[in-house]
């Protein structure tokens, strides 16, 4: 075993020092009848050469954003990761250290967390950020729990259908045993109709959760929706896309009390959905209800500025069953990556990235809809992704053909929205070129099947 240090000689010496005759004797405190009498039934050991070979073969069985042109979105995006992010986050002093419990030998990590919190606060227009949560979905659920406990309203939580369906499912699961009702407001037009929301919100409502831009890529009338909630004394939780804040109003500026996001888009690769970065920020007054770790600035005994984990009385290791959350290990490495990423882009870089997504995605949408077969599913303006309706209703066929042509062309929506089973979601990041977009348009146009001459399927 390449990772075991002790040699046979060492082992003998150590056993002697302990005063046992054998390794086996070390396990004497495990009752014999509870011991495993056989070897584990798992495959035999592989050397590094064999393992690398085996994993290379497994990897080769996957298509990926490097081998196909990726237009997939829906909460995960093929944004560019600058080389600096990989190089710095690949330094052992960062990725092989633990949560910074010993401040004296963790100032690197602690300062990064403090810088991260500041960046997130500035991004969101809110007062404070925590050190990270698991991902966007669980962050949404934590935000809802936070709203419930801080408002003391155990009645209901209102979310629109335009919220990421997996976020909605996660919230539902978290609320399962807490007796809080999860109300979903329909969004047939692709965005929340303020009237529908107003009808759903009342004085038992702990919060609403608005995603901006929403799951369909559409821009919600966030200010109006926030006002409805606030008028009812409910809190407003925003789910945002960090990249979009290069152009869009900050959640704190349109009324969000708590803002959460999936932060992988800030320098972390897609890696099949995780590990990602759960971002959470909130207003000052809510900070003592906030889950997760928080770093703060202080001075050491020599009066030197330094950073520590603080406000730990919220946390499980102190408050146990009364903690604001059970979260312990979070996503520190990706908070680091986000910090590096934002430091590299700066305000202009973030603006340009958002603008390229906007320009290219809108170009793609128009070009696609030059084809009579396709139409935009919704009228609302979009930023980075958009929903296309296939008037022939043959989405699976279409996407399969596109795949064969070398494109991960879109995410079919039927799996979450039966009424949208003739629709798919297309995302265009700053990495995509005009050439790639035009090629996609061409490939989708080529997808023709005998039955395709049928009368246009009626809605």
């Amino acid at each position, binding site marked *: 075993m390449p*990772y*075991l240090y002790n040699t046979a000689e060492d*082992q003998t010496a*150590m056993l002697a020092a*302990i005063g*046992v005759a054998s390794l086996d004797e*070390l396990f004497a405190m*495990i009752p014999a009848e509870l011991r495993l009498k056989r070897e584990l*039934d*798992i*495959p035999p050991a592989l050397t590094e050469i064999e*393992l690398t070979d085996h994993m*290379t073969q*497994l*990897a080769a069985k*996957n298509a*990926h954003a*490097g*081998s196909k042109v*990726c237009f997939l979105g829906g909460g995960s995006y093929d944004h560019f990761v600058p080389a600096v992010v990989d190089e*710095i986050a690949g330094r052992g*002093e*960062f990725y092989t250290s*633990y949560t910074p419990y010993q401040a004296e*030998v963790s*100032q690197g*990590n602690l300062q990064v967390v403090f810088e991260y*919190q500041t960046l997130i*606060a500035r991004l969101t227009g809110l*007062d404070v950020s925590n050190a990270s949560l698991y991902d966007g979905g*669980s962050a949404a659920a934590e935000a809802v729990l936070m709203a419930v406990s801080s408002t003391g309203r155990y009645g209901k939580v209102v979310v629109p259908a335009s919220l990421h369906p*997996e976020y909605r499912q996660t919230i*539902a699961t978290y609320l399962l*045993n807490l007796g809080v009702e999860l109300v979903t407001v329909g969004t047939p037009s692709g965005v929340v109709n303020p009237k529908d929301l107003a009808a759903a919100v009342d004085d038992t409502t702990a919060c609403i959760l608005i995603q901006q831009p929403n799951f369909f890529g559409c821009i919600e009338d966030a200010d109006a929706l926030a006002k409805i909630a606030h008028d009812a004394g409910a809190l407003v939780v925003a789910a945002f896309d960090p990249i979009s*804040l290069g152009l*869009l109003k900050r959640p704190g500026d349109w009324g969000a009390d708590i803002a959460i996001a999936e932060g992988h888009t800030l320098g972390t690769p897609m*890696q*099949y959905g995780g*590990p990602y970065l759960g971002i959470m920020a909130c207003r000052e007054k809510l900070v003592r209800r906030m889950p997760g770790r928080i770093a703060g600035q*202080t001075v*050491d*005994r020599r009066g030197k500025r330094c950073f520590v984990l*603080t406000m730990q009385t919220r946390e*499980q*290791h102190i*408050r*146990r069953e009364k903690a604001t*959350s*059970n979260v*312990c290990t979070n996503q520190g*490495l990706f908070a680091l990556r986000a910090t590096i990423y934002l*430091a590299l882009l700066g305000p202009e*870089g*973030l603006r340009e990235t958002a*603008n390229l997504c906007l320009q290219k995605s809108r170009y793609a949408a128009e070009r696609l809809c030059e084809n009579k077969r396709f139409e935009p599913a919704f009228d609302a*303006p979009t930023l980075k992704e958009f929903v296309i309706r296939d008037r022939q209703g043959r989405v699976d066929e279409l996407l399969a053909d596109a795949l064969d042509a070398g494109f991960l062309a879109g995410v079919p929506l039927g*799996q979450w929205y039966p009424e949208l089973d003739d629709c798919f979601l297309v995302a265009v990041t700053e990495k995509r*070129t*005009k*050439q790639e977009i035009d090629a996609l348009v061409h490939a989708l146009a080529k997808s023709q099947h005998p039955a395709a001459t049928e009368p246009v399927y009626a809605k």
Partner: protein
Amino acid sequence: MRNSRDTKLLFELSDKGCRAHRLPKCDVPERSVAELLPNSALADWPPALPELSEPQVVRHFANLSQLNMSVDTHFYPLGSCTMKYNPKRNERIARMPGFAELHPHQPEETLQGMLQLLYELQQYLQEISGLDTCSLQPAAGAHGELTALLVAAAYFRDLGEKRTKVLVPDSAHGTNPASATMAGFDSVTVKTLPSGSVDMDDLRAKLDDQIAVFMITNPNTVGIFEPNMSEIADAVHARGGLVYLDGANMNAILGIARPGDFGADMQHYNPHKTFSGPHGGGGPGAGPICVINKLAPYLPTPVVVRERSEVRGQRSEKDTDTSAPTSDLRPPTPSFRYRLDYDRPKSIGRVRAFFGNTGVLVRAYSYIRTHGPDGLRRVSENAVLNANYLLSRVKHFLPVPQGDRCMHEFVASAAKLKAEKGVSAMDLAKRLLDYGFHAPTVYFPLTVKEAIMVEPTETESKQTLDAFAETLFRVIEEDAGLLHDAPHTTPISRPDEVQAARQPVLVWPE
């Protein structure tokens, strides 16, 4: 060689007009943003991010990194955290585009390699735990705890049983009671004896028909194997309750004993501990859970299933049984197809978006494949050997209440030292830093006064353990004043935590 200029805050280093990352010109016809997006949704100014050059960014973070201790640079015997070596080969593998650049919504046909890996990992984890079915979805150990408790709740709801209590030993990790609360249960504390084992009288007193789950950490947080494990499991089961195993300490029993065999109905793993996933300065982790068959229907969706199917796409006889006999683990033949099964009506649903912390799971898979059956057993043997060896050296000058033996870790107490010399566990921890050792975990578990929890792991050498023991001895002999002010050689010393909490400064002002 410290460079304090470049470790100023990003915001202090910012220089208006600097720019590291530039973007390509827009290659499609560009229109004004105002034309494309409603004014009401637009920001008036871009967010106030710092402005830096690429060399400045690199120098800033490279210097910051050197202010950390880490497994790659220092012995890191942080109890309960299993700070073992993180294999570099796994990092290289996880970076392969075929793993790192997969989009979570890709069609299954384009994910057969990844799904095969995840399916096989489910099998391995089931086999190692002795339990029947696995969910890879949870993002960390605590998340696994919550998920398993939600599964238990769904199970009892299905049975029509109203059970409100989750029993948690006082020596348990804080995430256990916190998870119980989040899952909607009342967390009831059970006493443990100085040895760390469960106080059976207290347990019996608190066991009733309201019990849903008993959460036990075994090996427990003082590093011994619960002596009454079977009795406890029987008692809980007799009341219709379920036994949950906190698997944070699996590093002690891989291939030696299986939770499923000693009475657990569910457990989580911490692959970032047991299976060498790097801790990343505070994550990522993962928290896969395994459960017995009767709980399987309630697991989160999706799970990975394997089908025998010759022709791609073609309808094929399904085998939802994800707990295929593990003898079935021979390298799968091309005649298998891997699918995500969403069709689980009794499932609790989701506890996060997307499949799971796949990047961590890829490393765990690599780790298990690297070791094989014999290797995993030797991991635990050596983890336990190292811990007992260190215990045998330390106990002579620092009392270890639990006695002469331990599993993968032990908890010493500085209570006597505190009383006699005014030197606390914290003082010892801080002084060790001066000698180039990371400190053990202190003040956990709460059941041991002035607790010093030491977990060396199997990847450390006898030489290192000897050096650590000698240093600890030397430190104890040192003058108390020296220790109170320790550390003396680190970038900072004894931050004022009270001020940090009283007048919190959580962001740098604009």
